[in-house]
């Protein structure tokens, strides 16, 4: 700073000394006339600049109050900032000037359209000398000219000898050369025939064309120049558009003609003489002797398909590895879902890959792997797991796919049929029985749960089992179950499978986009069909059921969303029924054989190991509710319970989740065989047991005198699950009489329980509470073993006895192992947390300006808020200054006006006063004269 020395001088002295030291005052600064002559004047411009700079520098140093120093937070060496020190006065001056040039200009040009903008170089720059201006203008002119000459050299080319003068100086009017206007063709009144006769101009013409009349836009208003220009622009645009339109029309006509010519030419000329004619036709245009269609040939060849390098076919090893990778990936996804983690991120990347391969590289036969559940619906080609056929289809790239698929499926089905015939001894029985069935069906009253379609189908299924040998090859895709019944009603069950296979081939998903809908319809129809078939009494042969299940399993992937929703609804319906039955306390429990079958299907179609699954989780809840709340008083109920327990086991097979209800049911059922229903203390164990349940379980109690008829264990039959016909009349005529709970049946149930127990032991032996869960079972098995052999082991089937023994031994082993490997829990082994401190946090160099908020997001919000405030304040300040400026300007104008008025008046006054004084003078003179005369 200039005053940093601390010397106490007055500001004036300082200025003087500064000026003198800068050499701006004093003798040297005066420019003598001599100097001027010598040419100092030439350098005058630079000198003034220098001078100005010096003055500015002095100004800067002299007034410390005009300097505003912005403090820095951090001093960085070598970093120069622009706003370290700001001269406030200068800045203010700058701001005023800027306003003058922006707002001031705007003010000046307010309410003005058009006008002349002075673009002459240096005209608005007061710092420029006239010489400088001229120099600049001259250089600019030169540059412009040189650039123009490069583009249109002919214009100023003197050598050319053309009429350069005329070109340059040709006058224009309204952008048109006056030379073109000489004939005055488009003078407005030219075609006016009425006026032509009189030879005088019409009034309108006069008003528009004479005496500046052309300037008036309308009859009553004078148009501004801007409006006139706009009109011109609009007109020219319109003309341009019209031209384009005409051109297009011409093009169209030409194209039409060309087309017509093609057809005409085809009619006119034969192949042999077409060439000369062509050459004749094109020859006139081309002129040279080359073959006329050569270009076209070339062009065609460019676009012709060329042989491309194909992807190498995969070796067996590679294919196997790919398949392995795919399975591993699917398994990984399943694991993630089992743990309840989202498997989407991986899925997405996969599906992206597939999408690319499907869209971009469609020609490749890359997609050789078998379709799976993780596939998207679009590129999924459901086909049987007949590998050869599958590969064939894939490798032919989809062409002729329908046929091959059909053929392969047919073969398969024929095999199936043969198999069926071989093994279905019972099948023929059912056929033989069918006649009697029909009769009974005539009088059958439809139970409330059986749909009419069900009944109709039942009738048809059984009536026409061996009817038509020849199946048609094409079918209408069934949209709903009624349509399906209509379609296959006359075919046997085995033929129905063929129909399904053919439908799937006919409406293969690759053949049409609509087929996805049709196939998913078919899938739902088949699900319904399965429900109907599993309700049949006598039961439908297993191969048929399995065939349908297989189809459903494969079709489910076509539209998993729809299929999943359908299944979910089925579960919800079933739950409603079971809930009602439980509330009413009915013996039947509201669960049908078809429900059980569908649940079994869902357990294997869906990924049942998921932690949460939209179908499986509600299904498990439903099953568990049934198992824990239903009172098992009939053999049917118990069989349902056992099968459901099996389904539960299937769903937890991989995830090994813990299902207490299943275990409770198993243990209670096991206990029922030996425990006395009257004595509650006899039923020791963890499972809950009410008196009602205990009494109902009396059904299974194996009495002392009961003997088994056969030495073999009686397996459970599907027929046991099927609810008996509602009316007694039906029950008497039913083919399978209601199963009597004999000792064989009881031992069968016992055996089933034991087998399930063993399965659950296998699943749970690693569970932490294995001992707690299965110790009661150990005691129970001991009790069974103790009570059974005493009286009647010799009557029991050998298998069951052996099973009991092996299960006991196995369980004992497992329990011992579990006990050996058990350790106390250590669930709370977390990383130790730091002890909370209440000592205040101390900042060594606390500053108000620094933000110590540890919350980052809050910090950022405060920062933003500050910025906004700052900007707002700045904007307000700017606006206020603008207003001040405008007010100042207005005041200045007003003053100016006042001053000019005052001047004017002054002038007038002075004139008048002069006149007056003159007159007075004259008067005085006259009076003097008169006096003198007198």
């Amino acid at each position, binding site marked *: 700073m200039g005053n940093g020395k601390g010397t106490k001088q007055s500001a004036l002295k300082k200025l003087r000394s500064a000026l003198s030291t800068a050499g701006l005052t004093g003798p040297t600064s005066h420019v003598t006339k001599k100097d001027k002559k010598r040419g100092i004047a030439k350098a005058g411009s630079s000198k003034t600049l220098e001078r100005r700079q010096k003055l500015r520098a002095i100004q800067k140093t002299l007034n410390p109050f005009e300097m505003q120093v912005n403090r820095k937070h951090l001093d960085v060496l070598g970093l120069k900032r622009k706003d370290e020190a700001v001269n406030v006065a200068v800045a203010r001056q700058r701001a005023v000037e800027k306003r003058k040039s922006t707002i001031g200009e705007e003010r000046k040009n307010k309410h003005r359209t058009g006008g002349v903008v002075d673009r002459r170089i240096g005209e608005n720059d007061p710092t420029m000398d006239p010489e400088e201006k001229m120099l600049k203008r001259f250089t600019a002119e030169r540059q412009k000219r040189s650039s123009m000459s490069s583009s249109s050299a002919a214009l100023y080319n003197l050598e050319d000898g053309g009429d350069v003068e005329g070109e340059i100086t040709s006058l224009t009017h309204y952008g048109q050369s006056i030379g073109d206007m000489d004939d005055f063709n488009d003078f407005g009144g030219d075609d006016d025939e009425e006026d032509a006769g009189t030879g005088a101009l019409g009034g309108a013409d006069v008003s528009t064309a004479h005496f500046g009349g052309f300037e008036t836009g309308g009859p009553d208003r004078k148009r501004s120049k801007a409006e006139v220009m706009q009109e011109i622009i609009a007109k020219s645009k319109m003309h341009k558009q019209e031209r384009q339109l005409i051109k297009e029309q011409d093009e169209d006509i030409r194209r039409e003609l060309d087309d017509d010519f093609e057809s005409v030419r085809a009619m006119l000329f034969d192949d042999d003489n077409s060439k000369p004619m062509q050459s004749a036709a094109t020859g006139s245009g081309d002129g040279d002797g080359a073959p006329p269609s050569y270009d076209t040939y070339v062009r065609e060849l460019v676009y012709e398909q060329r042989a491309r390098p194909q992807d190498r076919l995969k070796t067996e090893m590679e294919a196997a590895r790919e398949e392995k990778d795919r399975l591993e990936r699917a398994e990984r996804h*399943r694991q993630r*879902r089992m743990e309840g983690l989202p498997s989407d991120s991986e899925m997405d990347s996969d599906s992206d890959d597939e999408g690319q391969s499907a869209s971009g590289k469609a020609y490749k036969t890359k997609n050789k792997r078998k379709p*799976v*559940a*993780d596939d998207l619906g679009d590129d999924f080609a459901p086909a049987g*797991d007949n590998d050869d056929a599958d590969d064939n289809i894939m490798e032919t790239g989809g062409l002729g796919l329908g046929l091959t698929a059909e053929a392969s499926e047919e073969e398969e089905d024929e095999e199936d049929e043969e198999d069926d015939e071989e093994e279905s001894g019972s099948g023929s029985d059912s056929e033989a029985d069918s006649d009697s069935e029909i009769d009974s069906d005539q009088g059958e009253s439809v139970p409330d749960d059986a749909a009419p379609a069900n009944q109709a189908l039942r009738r048809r299924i059984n009536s026409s089992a061996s009817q038509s040998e020849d199946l048609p090859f094409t079918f209408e895709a069934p949209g709903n179950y009624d349509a399906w019944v209509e379609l296959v009603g006359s075919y046997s069950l085995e033929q129905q499978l063929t129909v399904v296979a053919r439908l799937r081939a006919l409406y293969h998903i690759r053949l049409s986009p609509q087929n996805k809908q049709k196939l998913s319809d078919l899938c739902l129809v088949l699900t319904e069909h399965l429900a109907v078939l599993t309700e049949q009494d006598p039961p439908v042969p*297993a191969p048929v*059921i*399995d065939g349908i*299940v297989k189809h*459903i*399993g494969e079709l*489910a*992937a076509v539209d998993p*969303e729809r299929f999943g*929703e359908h299944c*979910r609804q089925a579960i919800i319906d079933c739950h409603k029924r079971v809930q009602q039955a439980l509330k009413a306390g009915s013996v039947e429990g509201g669960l049908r054989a078809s429900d059980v079958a569908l649940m079994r*299907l869902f357990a*294997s*179609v869906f*990924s049942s190991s*998921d*932690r949460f*699954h939209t179908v499986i989780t509600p299904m498990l*809840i*439903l099953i*568990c*509710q049934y198992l824990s*709340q239903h009172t098992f008083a009939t053999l049917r109920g118990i069989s349902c319970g056992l*099968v459901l327990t*099996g389904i539960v086991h*299937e769903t937890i*097979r991989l995830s*090994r*989740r*813990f299902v*207490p209800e299943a275990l*409770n049911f198993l243990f209670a059922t096991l206990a029922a065989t030996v425990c006395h229903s009257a004595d509650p203390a006899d039923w020791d164990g*963890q*499972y809950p*047991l*009410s008196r009602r349940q205990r009494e109902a379980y009396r059904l299974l109690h194996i009495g002392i005198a009961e003997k088994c008829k056969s030495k073999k264990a009686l*397996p*459970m039959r599907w027929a046991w699950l099927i609810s008996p016909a509602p009316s007694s009349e039906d029950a008497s005529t039913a083919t399978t009489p209601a199963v009597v709970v004999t000792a064989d049946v009881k031992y*069968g149930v016992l055996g*089933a329980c034991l*087998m*399930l127990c063993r399965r659950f032991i296998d699943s749970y032996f690693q*569970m*932490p509470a294995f*001992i*707690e869960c299965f110790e009661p079972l150990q005691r129970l098995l001991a009790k069974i073993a103790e009570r059974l052999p005493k009286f009647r082991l010799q009557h029991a089937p050998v298998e069951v006895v052996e099973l009991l023994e092996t299960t006991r031994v196995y369980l004992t082993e497992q329990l011992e192992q579990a*006990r050996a*490997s*058990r*350790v106390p*829990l250590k*669930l*709370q*082994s977390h990383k130790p947390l730091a002890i909370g401190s209440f000592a205040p946090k101390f900042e060594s160099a606390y500053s108000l300006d620094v933000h110590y908020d540890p919350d980052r997001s809050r910090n950022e919000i405060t920062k933003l808020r500050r910025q906004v405030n700052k900007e707002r304040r700045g904007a307000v300040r700017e606006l206020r200054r603008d207003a001040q400026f405008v007010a100042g300007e207005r005041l200045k104008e007003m003053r100016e006006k006042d001053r000019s008025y005052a001047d004017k008046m002054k002038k007038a006054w002075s004139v008048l006063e002069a006149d007056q004084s003159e007159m007075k003078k004259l008067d005085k003179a006259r009076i003097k004269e008169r006096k003198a005369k007198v």
Partner: protein
Amino acid sequence: MSAKRKHSSTREESKAAVERIIALESNIVSKQENLNDLVDILSIAKSGTVETKFVATNSLGRIFSALWKQGLLKRPTGKEQKTTAVVSEWLRDNYNEYLGVLKEQLKHGEEAAIQVGALKQLMQAVAHEGENASRGSSSGYEFPNALYLSILELVLDRPVAEEEEEGGASHQVLRVLADSYLNLYDDLRYFFYRDVAKLASPDYDPFRTGGRSGARTKALVEEAEGFVRNAFLVMGTMVKATAGVGGHAAGFWVTGTAVPGEESSVGSAAAHRKAFSEAWLAVLRQPLTADIYKQVLLIMHRRIIPHMVDATGLMDFLSAAYDAGGSVSLLALNGLFTLMDQYNLNYPQFYTKLYALLDRNLLHVKYRARFFRLLAVFLGSSHLPAYLVAAFIKRLARLAVSATPAGAVTVIPVIYNLLKAHPSCMVLLHRVEEEEGEGEGEREDPYLAEEADPALCNAMASSLWELQALQQHYYPNIATLANIFGEPFHKPAFSLEDFLDHTYATFFDGDTARTPKKAAALAVQPPVSLLRAGDATSDFLVL
């Protein structure tokens, strides 16, 4: 056709009878000379069709109430003329006969309407008699309790057949009694309580030969059961138990010349409470069926105990119920808690009994929400010894292993809250073994599940493996909830109310309420057959 004709003929007959009754009634009312026609109406009331009986009793009621007003039915004092004395004597005989008819109808009426009608007529008679009696008495109020007692005995002492649960005749009669008399009139209620106590007392039996204290025949036992059930049905539905006794006439059925005030027994609230207490104690002393037992216990803490004079009188009853075991114990707990809380009852071995209540059916019974609310209160004290809390925790965890999801979802927050309130029990979740060498051989769970005493069951030495099993529960919400035991105990204690009222249905609805956004995930390998090869079901099932 013939049946129809017959029907119509009987209808015509009854129509004629009704007309006759009406004619007779107007005769009687108009002139005293025609009083002899009473006998005709009475005979119709005794033996007629249902319709005529009904009409006849109604008209008799009207006639007698008119006679009461005329003062003809007063007991003759000897001051009147001899003829009037004879007439009133004769009329009183007829009146008693009429009451007998009504009682017969009340007891064995064919239809509910007849029975209810008879009840109403009898209550009217009570009102008239009372009015008449209080006119003569010094206090200005007299209640004809003899008649009332006989009515109540008829109403209450009838076996309720099992089949007529709701809407049956006796059920309706009881409801009418409760709703339109006992709930509205203080005097009726007061005397009802007193009479019930009298009827239920073992030495009440003026007319019976055997006596209840003697050898109980089966019929007698059934009768007693019926009485208790009826009494409970009436007493259980009474809205105003004792409150609202005041000196206003509207609250009294029998309108005497003066309204009984606080000094008389009918008017004082204390006497009402005493009558109430005695009635309940007398009823509860009777042999109760299991059903009634449970229902009494259900309303005990809210509707009986607050109105008792001395609630400690219920102590024996509640203790016995608490010792009974099963769901009865669970229900008794509520009343017992009220006694302990407000009446300073000291129950020995309370926690041992409470521990015994945690049996295998606990998580499956209907009243478990009620129980767990109380359990949270009982175990909420921070002064309980750790071994006790540990025993409860361990037992609850044991139960949760075989519980339904609804049970498990209740138990988990309870255990969490207990562990949080008693940090010394955290060893159940996390045990650092210092004595490594010692515990080498035995890995047996030190907890003794069969031990009835929580002090001896050695729960503190055990670990909660059961909760770890719940972490693998098939229902994902429970698995997630059980996972909190593996996390640091930073969460605030759970509010139990959110977890108590779950059932299978709520879980199912919760899972299926929203339509899923994503497609259901399919199995990796599509199924080939309904039963997978090696499936657990295929072991024992043949398709």
